[in-house]
């Protein structure tokens, strides 16, 4: 039961799968790692749902996602890649703006992604959870097991680092 309503694994995958994948992509910077991570997260969610106790579902879900990512990093004994692959499949984009807008968006998106990957993990995670996933500060605090004040500081400093990296 989640927020009083039953939620199956399939429903979690359908309603949160895209967010999980986008979080994974922005954190890792490449589609292969993002796919592996999203799959790992969904499998952990399947196993964890049986023991889920009603509370902040978002906090629970993103804690699982974060742990999966950190476990993956430890396994690989390396930091995520710092550049986008050349063969990035842009057909995954949901919106279909005009071609010139697409080109501008890709260049801009690549720059932002590269800048994002330059951030230390804690700051990258905070800004991605806030600006990409759209979580509140309270939800982020639950997900990363840190006080709200720390989250506020990480988001602020992370954005400042982004601006510096892009300028």
């Amino acid at each position, binding site marked *: 039961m989640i927020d009083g309503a039953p939620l199956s694994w399939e429903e979690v995958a359908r309603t949160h799968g895209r967010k999980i*994948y986008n979080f994974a992509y922005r954190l890792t910077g490449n589609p292969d790692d993002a796919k592996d991570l999203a*799959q790992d997260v969904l499998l952990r969610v399947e196993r964890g749902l049986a023991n889920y106790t009603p509370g902040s579902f978002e906090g629970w879900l993103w804690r699982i996602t974060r742990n999966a990512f950190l476990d993956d990093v430890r396994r690989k004994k390396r930091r995520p890649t710092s550049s986008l692959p050349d063969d990035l499949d842009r057909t*995954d984009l*949901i919106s279909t703006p005009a071609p010139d807008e697409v080109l501008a*968006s890709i260049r*801009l998106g690549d720059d*932002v*992604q590269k800048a994002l990957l330059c951030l230390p993990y804690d700051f990258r995670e905070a800004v991605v959870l806030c600006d990409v996933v759209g979580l509140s500060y309270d939800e982020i605090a639950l997900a990363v097991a840190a006080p709200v004040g720390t989250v506020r500081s990480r*988001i602020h400093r992370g954005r400042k680092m982004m601006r510096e990296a*892009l300028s």
Partner: protein
Amino acid sequence: MIHLGELASAYLDGETTPQEAAKLVAHLGRCQLCQREMEDLHAGRSLLRSLPVLEMPESIRVELGLVPNVVPLVRRPLTWVGAAAAAIMIFVVAATATAPDTVGLSLREVSTRYEQQTLVEGGVIPVVGVVQVGGGE
């Protein structure tokens, strides 16, 4: 308050208390440095929020068994070939099962039986290879 600091980002996200927001607005009115920082933060935040949203690859759902793996259309003709082969096999087996038991009969007896069946049924499929030539009566 000296300068806004992290309160600026929290304000942009609607994560300040009413008291903090009031202090921030009052400070912004008299501090050009914080006005510029606020503009920079707003720009950086907008860039992050304008990143394209990616669709989760369908292969993830397929590999996790969340959707059935549909057989591509191009493979369907092979399915018909298989079905046709199966139908032929069933026909042959059925014809064999319903064919007269000729094992152990002489050629004359087999010939006589076939002539009788041909007259009654209008023809049957002869089963080749089951006649023991030279078998004793």
